[in-house]
């Protein structure tokens, strides 16, 4: 009993001293609560379906950020990982009869392999060359998918895949919990030593190599990690939609993920997740306006970029928080002095 009370008090202290002092942390906590409590308020199957897909794409978008945002390896063919994950999971599920809890990780391993295969030739390229080359890989794979209709189902894709669980709410909870877990893991990775090296590679690769770090290995690691997370997203997608079609490999898929990330703000992980949670439902709810839906989407993206070229969420964060000039700790924008070192904020 005392132990429980001790932990409760500890939780309250953490909430008071670490979370409530910064609006961005409050927003993250509210976001977690929102994602976890959504089915309590509405069991509408359409809404749940949209938010399940949103969660899947949130994993996908933040995995792009892990590779391209942090390491600076502009990947324009991220749909490759998604598609490989989806197709592998579907084939394994259909032919080896392995249930979803086994086929999704195996599909993700397939995507890791794809990451290795495209990572090795791409190591020598940089910048625009890399961006344009990576664009080619999903298209090559798509050609192969179309050329082998017996194995891959050609244009119709592979259908008849097992559902994750029967009920929609359980489906939503599984996907949402996986999303929250994986995004936290990605956030932790980018906060760790490895993440700092990733970030350094983006800023100045030569300097990183000069400090005795094997940048090749770290870049390959970034490709594999990103491939893994995107592969999980692809496998979840295949099992949720119960179809793995060529649409998962399309160029527009690769472009959409880049749009989400840059809209939300790259090098943040939370940016892409937030962007997907803003843009994807928005696009779905504009469905009654079928003809101008994509046009509105494009216009919103163009306008946001004009006023906040660093992305929506970093811009918002800068509005509500200030960095202390002395100790570099973030404070609420309304404070006059830093909450740690009491230096005056300008």
């Amino acid at each position, binding site marked *: 009993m005392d132990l429980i009370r001790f932990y409760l008090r500890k939780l309250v202290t953490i909430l008071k001293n670490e979370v409530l002092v910064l609006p961005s942390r409050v927003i993250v906590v509210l976001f977690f609560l929102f994602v976890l409590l959504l089915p309590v308020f509405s069991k509408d199957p359409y809404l749940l379906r949209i938010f399940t897909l949103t969660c899947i794409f949130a994993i996908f978008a933040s995995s792009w950020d892990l590779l391209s945002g942090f390491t600076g390896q*502009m990947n324009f063919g991220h749909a490759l990982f998604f598609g490989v994950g989806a197709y592998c999971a579907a084939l394994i599920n259909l032919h080896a009869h392995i249930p979803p809890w086994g086929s999704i990780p195996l599909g993700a391993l397939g995507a890791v392999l794809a990451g290795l295969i495209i990572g090795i*030739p791409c190591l*020598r*390229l940089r910048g*625009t*060359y890399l*961006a*344009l*080359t990576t*664009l*080619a*890989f999903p*298209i*090559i*794979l*798509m*050609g*192969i998918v*179309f*050329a082998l209709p017996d194995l891959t189902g050609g244009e119709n894709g592979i259908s008849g895949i097992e559902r994750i669980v029967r009920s929609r709410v359980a489906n939503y909870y599984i996907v949402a919990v996986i999303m929250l877990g994986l995004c936290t893991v990605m956030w932790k990775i980018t906060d760790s030593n490895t993440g700092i090296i990733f970030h350094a590679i983006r800023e*100045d690769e030569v300097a990183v190599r000069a400090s005795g770090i094997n940048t090749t290995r770290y870049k390959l690691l970034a490709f594999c990690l990103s491939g893994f997370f995107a592969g999980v997203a692809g496998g979840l997608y295949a099992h949720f939609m119960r179809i793995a079609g060529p649409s998962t490999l399309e*160029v*527009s898929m690769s*472009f959409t993920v*880049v*749009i989400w990330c*840059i*809209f939300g703000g*790259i090098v943040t992980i939370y940016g892409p997740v937030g962007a997907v949670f803003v843009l994807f439902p928005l696009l779905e709810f504009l469905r009654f306006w079928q*003809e*101008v839906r*994509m*046009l509105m*989407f*494009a*216009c919103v*993206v*163009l306008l946001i*970029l*004009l006023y906040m*070229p*660093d992305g929506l969420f970093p811009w918002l964060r800068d509005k509500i928080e200030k960095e202390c000039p002395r100790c570099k700790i973030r404070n609420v924008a309304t404070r006059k002095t830093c909450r740690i070192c009491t230096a005056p904020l300008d």
Partner: protein
Amino acid sequence: MVLDIIIGGLISGSVYALLAIGFSIIFGAARIVNLAHTAFYMVAAYCIYFAAQKMGIHPIWGMVAAIVLVTLLGVISYKLFINPIREHEGAVLIATIALAMAFQEIMTLIFTGTYLSIPSLIKGYFSILGVKIFYQQLMTFCAALLVMAVLWVLLMKTRLGLAIRSTAQDREVANLMGINESRVAMITMGISVGLAAFTGAIVVPLTVLDPHMWMHPLIMMMAVVVLGGLGSLKGCFIGAYILGFAEALVVFLIPAGAFLKGSVALSIMILVLLMRPEGLFGVTFEEER
């Protein structure tokens, strides 16, 4: 068969060459990766369709009008959407994709998503070795070569061309030498979009129009640019014909070729890049830190 392959390769090669050169000069002069480049090509094709089929103007005048209009459109969208965010590389990429999507949707709204076509300018054909060669195909090829020659003269022999080339080599030094860098960027954008519009104009009698027609050329164009080496006109020219012929060969020789044409062309690009990471005739740009 052989002649079919040659004709197909020459035509798609010239189209890719024109597109890739336009894409390449704006990348060189302003470091803008303009993913909306082929969207302008699509808009031009639709303009001609509108002029020729709906308004009943002769297609030649439709082409002239389309090129002028689309060039204006390109310069305006550069001024409004790309110029303010040029410093942010990622934002420019997204802005151009969004622009391309916006064009695609506007065209879908106006002309619906159905396949459209317009008749060729000159009817008739002649045959060599039993293979029909339409005059239209011949004309498209000749017009492409002519424009490439004009462009070469413009870039190599005039003061404007000198300004564009020196901006491409080093932006800051060009600025110090008294070249108005932002104006050069705008003029280059105009030329580049104009080239895309011209490509659309000469291709339109040979293909069908639909709002998604910019996707495949965009990918092939990027493959050409990477294969030939960014910023090298000679590379664009040769790379375009290599990929054009590769496509034609695959389509005619392999059974499921139409599906694989993109894959084979892109695999060639990746193989070349494995051996020469800077492309066939790559120019190394100074490292921008």
